[in-house]
């Protein structure tokens, strides 16, 4: 028998890449009013900061993403999650820009989160970790930039949850953001999306190995629950045409329906099981609970008195929004709402809708229109800045 792979919380301190202790170890004030700290951020950088310190691109990752956007992932040993967009000569050109990608607050790849040690107790936080928000994640990213000596970024870019952070960044720190590129995002999480997240959270919490969130000290892992959460979520990242093209009703390693219980008869079942099983090796169940909760709480419109335009009123930040036609998790209508608010606010905004049948995940895939429009936009921002 081979030894089971180590849990994420056991390996997160050994993962490659720099860590920053924020605010000299002083606890960070959260939007909930609680204090958390000291806060540590694990991040990756590529490229070189120019003399004017004006060429930084900050990447905000999605719910289950991490700081390893480019290069081999230390756990999965696969390519970084955004290799299509980041790298030499790519739209986010590491030959030209200084690219920073932090693991978000509440994450499990080295940044402080529920799988980190609570300095007050010496134990892992588990569910004693405070509830966090998109705003907290953004504030922590801003503190990381302070730590790196970067006052202003030429662009904050991200897809999905990353797009939420981009929108929040531009609202919270307009003077620090020259341009904002939210891809496949929204200014608030929809009821349907909260509902899907709730299914995922219930799956995790229904797993007896979850132990009320303190599975670390029990030496257990709620793998079944987390993998079901991932399976349900993964469906929302795709589309019916994409699933049909990939799997149709094809059977898995058999010629006919088995009429034998509930094994994975269909390829699509087998695929989802694989997605679930591989996910638990690189993600912490509590981190999933906390980050999905933070997304559900996100509502920039409510934060600005019910008028979304107020979030960015009079800002000099340039925006490029992108959506995909077949994305039903963050549909075009959500991006358009943001675009109309930005126009009402008199902001310089571009909006691109890309024809794709790949669903929400299209932002991670080979979409030439996405590359061309993002590259054109970033190039014009860089030229305006004089490099």
């Amino acid at each position: 028998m081979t030894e089971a792979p180590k849990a994420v919380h056991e390996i997160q301190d050994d993962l490659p890449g720099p860590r920053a202790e924020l605010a000299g170890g002083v606890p960070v004030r959260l939007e909930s009013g609680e204090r958390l700290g000291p806060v540590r951020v694990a991040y990756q950088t590529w490229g070189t900061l120019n003399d004017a310190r004006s060429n930084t691109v900050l990447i905000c990752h999605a719910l289950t993403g991490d700081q390893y956007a480019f290069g081999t992932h230390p756990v999965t040993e696969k390519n970084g999650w955004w290799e299509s967009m980041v790298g030499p000569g790519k739209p986010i050109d590491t030959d030209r820009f200084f690219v920073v990608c932090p693991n978000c607050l509440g994450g499990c790849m080295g940044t402080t989160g529920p799988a980190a040690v609570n300095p007050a107790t010496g134990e892992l936080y588990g569910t004693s970790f405070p509830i966090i928000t998109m705003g907290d994640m953004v504030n922590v990213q801003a503190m990381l930039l302070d730590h790196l000596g970067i006052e202003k970024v030429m662009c904050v870019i991200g897809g999905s949850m990353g797009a939420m952070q981009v929108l929040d960044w531009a609202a919270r720190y307009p003077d620090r953001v020259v341009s904002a590129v939210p891809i496949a995002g929204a200014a608030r999480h929809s009821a349907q999306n909260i509902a899907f997240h709730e299914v995922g959270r219930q799956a995790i919490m229904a797993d007896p190995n979850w132990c009320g969130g303190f599975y670390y000290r029990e030496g257990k892992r709620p793998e079944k629950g987390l993998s079901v959460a991932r399976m349900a979520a993964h469906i929302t990242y795709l589309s019916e045409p994409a699933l049909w093209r990939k799997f149709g009703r094809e059977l898995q390693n058999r010629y006919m329906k088995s009429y034998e219980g509930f094994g994975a008869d269909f390829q699509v079942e087998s695929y989802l099981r694989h997605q679930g099983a591989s996910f638990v090796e690189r993600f912490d169940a509590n981190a999933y609970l906390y980050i999905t909760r933070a997304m559900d709480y996100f509502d920039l419109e409510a934060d600005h008195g019910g008028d979304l335009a107020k979030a960015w009123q009079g800002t000099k930040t340039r925006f490029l929004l992108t959506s995909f036609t077949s994305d039903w998790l963050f549909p075009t209508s959500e991006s358009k709402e943001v675009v109309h608010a930005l126009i009402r606010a008199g902001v310089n905004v571009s909006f691109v809708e890309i024809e794709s049948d790949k669903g929400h995940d299209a932002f991670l895939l080979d979409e030439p229109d996405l590359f061309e429009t993002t590259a054109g936009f970033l190039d014009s921002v860089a030229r305006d800045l004089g490099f």
Partner: protein
Amino acid sequence: MSLLSGARDRFILGENRFGLRPDLGLVASMVEPGSRILDVGCGDGALLDYLVRENGCDGRGMEISQAGVNACVARGLPAVQGDADRHLVDYPDDSFDYVILSHTLQAVHRPGEVLHQMMRIADVAIVSILNFGHWRARLSMVTRGRMPHTRFLPEPWFMTSTIRPCTVRDFMDLVRLEGLLTGDCYGIANEREVTVIRSGFEGQSNLFAEQAVFEVLPAKRRKPGRRS
């Protein structure tokens, strides 16, 4: 006015080193450098590109076709997908110096309302139209008994995006009807032969211009105060 040469009332549009279509070159010459522009129906951004890069304008585009928008953004121009009939209402009052509608007003459902929206958003509207009063269009209808089908109106009636065909006279009537004024107006024949259209003397251009460009101004203001 480097694009223009010749006598005062008639001139030939010069070559544009950016390969800008001559009528767009004329529109560009009517815009104060460095001003704030909204180009409605900006297509792939040819005019917008020129105004932003050569005239130092703060230019934004709106375009109904997503392919056009994507082309604009890929060349670094700000653009959104939108429909003049429905989406001009989003823009704040007085947020631009100029709104440009080149070959777009005849493609909207409510041209009068669109003109008013333009006047609300900007100081000046620049509108170019295809002139269905051109003698070839008239001749084509009279002799063939069919909708005009000419060199400059090449598409059959069921293909054209021009759902509101009109003449130079018709357009000037609409401007008056809406309580607005026209400023500088030009008729264009053979792509580059320009004639200044004088109010009350538009008959000649109505017969000989294939397209026309109008400066539309709000009532009671001869020339607007332009912000730098």
